[in-house]
């Protein structure tokens, strides 16, 4: 095995050379999903909207005592949405990345495209979907007069952190998925557990002690909690709470990159 440099800047140059392909793919991904439907763009937002509606209707009254100090009758909705928009981004991007090489097999085998262009497409697609849902959420918050002040700026690193977590883990799983297709199947299940192991629908402080200790390992909790505080209390929590998720994200990125770098030559052989 010849020793490889940890990173080659030429990889970035290759991706840049194919920026036309990347942008066209993002556009195609977006358009193709709603092509031929009558309501088109509406379907892009229908699914998260339905989810938010159901949880709000079912849980808003029960959850009210769990959010002390919140007088607004929309408090639970805001709490829920802040978590769900981030979760949507995370699961969307992770799902895309896990199938990324397997689903693009014919392109990878027959056309000489830089492999890294595919995760970039996934990230841009997921982020643009997120942007739409987030804009709707922001409009809702503004409409009820609860739009946070300058603290909203802190959402930028929060979003980047979620994307980094999903991308790192996604590339790692996506690479492994080429060799063991079981990975994609188990990811779907993993995501279901992960959703309920993150305080999104329920408040974290409602957890019993042992559960809270266990869930402290979940890197998404501090990030989601950060966003919930921004929107519900209009203040930026201590940045140090993000240190652990940032470290995990970095570790995933590194692991994903190492796996990809080690196996990228074999990916096409195996597809």
């Amino acid at each position, binding site marked *: 095995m010849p020793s490889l440099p940890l990173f080659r800047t030429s990889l970035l140059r290759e991706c840049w*050379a*194919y920026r*036309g*392909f990347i942008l*066209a*793919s993002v556009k*195609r991904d977006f*358009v*193709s999903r709603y*092509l*031929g439907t009558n309501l088109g763009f509406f379907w892009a937002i229908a699914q998260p909207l339905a989810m938010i509606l159901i949880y709000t209707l079912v849980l808003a009254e029960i959850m009210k005592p769990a959010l002390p100090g919140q007088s607004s009758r929309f408090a639970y909705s805001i709490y829920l949405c802040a978590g769900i928009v981030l979760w949507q981004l995370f699961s969307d991007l992770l799902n895309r990345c896990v199938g990324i090489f397997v689903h693009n097999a*014919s*392109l*990878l*085998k*027959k*056309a*000489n*495209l830089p492999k890294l262009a595919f995760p970039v497409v996934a990230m841009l697609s997921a982020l643009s979907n997120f942007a739409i849902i987030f804009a709707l959420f922001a409009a809702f918050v503004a409409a009820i007069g609860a739009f946070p002040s300058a603290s909203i700026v802190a959402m930028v690193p929060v979003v980047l952190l979620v994307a980094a977590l999903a991308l790192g883990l996604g590339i790692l799983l996506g690479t492994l998925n080429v*060799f*063991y297709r079981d990975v994609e199947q188990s990811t779907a299940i993993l995501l279901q557990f992960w959703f309920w192991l993150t305080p999104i629908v329920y408040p974290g402080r409602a957890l019993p002690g042992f559960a809270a200790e266990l869930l402290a390992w979940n890197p998404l909790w501090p990030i989601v909690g950060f966003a919930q505080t921004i929107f519900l209390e209009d203040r930026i929590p201590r940045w140090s709470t993000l240190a652990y998720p940032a470290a995990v994200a970095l570790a995933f990125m590194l692991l994903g990159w190492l796996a990809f770098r080690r196996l990228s*030559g*074999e990916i*096409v*052989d195996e597809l």
Partner: protein
Amino acid sequence: MAHLRVRGLGKAYKRYPRKWGRLAEWLGLGRQHHLTWILRDVTFDVSAGEAVGIVGANGAGKSTLLKLITGTVRPTAGAFEAGGRIAALLELGIGFHQEFTGRENVRMSGHILGIPAARIDELMEDIEAFAEIGDYIDQPVRTYSTGMQVRLAFSVATAVRPDILLVDEALSVGDTYFQHKSFDRIRSFREQGTTLLFVSHSPGAVKTLCDRAILLDHGKLLRDDLPDAVLDYYNALVAAQRAEYEVWQSSRAPGRTVTRSGTAEATIESVELLVSGRASRTLCSGDAAVVRVAIAAHASIPALTAGILFRDRLGNDVFGTNTFHLGASPSSVASGEPLTVDFSFPRVALGAGSYSITIALHLGDEHTHANFDWWDRALVFEVMPGSGPVTIGVCSLAVEASWHTQPSATWSAVSRSPQ
């Protein structure tokens, strides 16, 4: 200069006998795989502007070689150096999306091929014109016929002349008209200096298009020479393999995927195509050939007839006759008598292409009387272009052309347009 230098190129795939072997290897439990070499130690040079054909049987490594040079597959050993932009026509219509219009798909293909968007827009008119799909360009690709998709895909794939072009034979699709058109385009690239690497099963195409040919066999480069020499060698190789194959086959039941039917009073034991006295599966248009049929009679038969039928690639009857009509049927055949019948053709006037031979044994002038054995596609062979003029079609008629200053009377009568 757009040369291509290939040095010791090899590709091996890892085979893991155990399902979790790869995982075990990742975890540092030592080597769990063995390598299966698909291509090994291939070295050759293609100088700028040269056209080289790559021939070989299925699984010889032809496509793998192209994929390595394209860059999609990473070599296990060796290296190659290319002196210019490489374009590969390995498969048409990669990345075509059925719901998008032809125009949108052309843009996407351009991106995949690495052609800048502005350049694709400039070329759009040419691409449309070459594909000849008219207003369909703005319709979703799902409404296209297969032929239209292929035309559009080929048109965009060859919109920009590459320095080095790799062509897989899978390209010979679409109708004959477009096949010719696409061949013309590849030929014109050649004339403008494109270096060509052309994979084909069809000896005819290699002969007409290439300056040189390379023969791959089981992943190794066997010959690198002029197309004629390499193709002859290849034919001999195929014939030798076939002979072995039939020896092997005769030890088993003769039940291949060909249709055989009949009452079996007499059976066809073997069918052989002989060119210059040697068993062959290829010949040149206009060559002499003998079809030798070995027959075993299992009963006494008063008037045994052997029939022969040539069919083209698509199964159309091209030529057929039998020993009854040729006045060559034996008066009677005794049981157990081994027989051979030779159909001798002083000049096989078939056009270039692939043909099959069907042999039948029956009574009298037609097989409807009593059909002993009917063997569909007993043998498939290839006709390559001969030394004569270039022709198309399944037959090669003897023809001469001459010009006259005065048009012939019938010609002028037919072509005069009514006023």
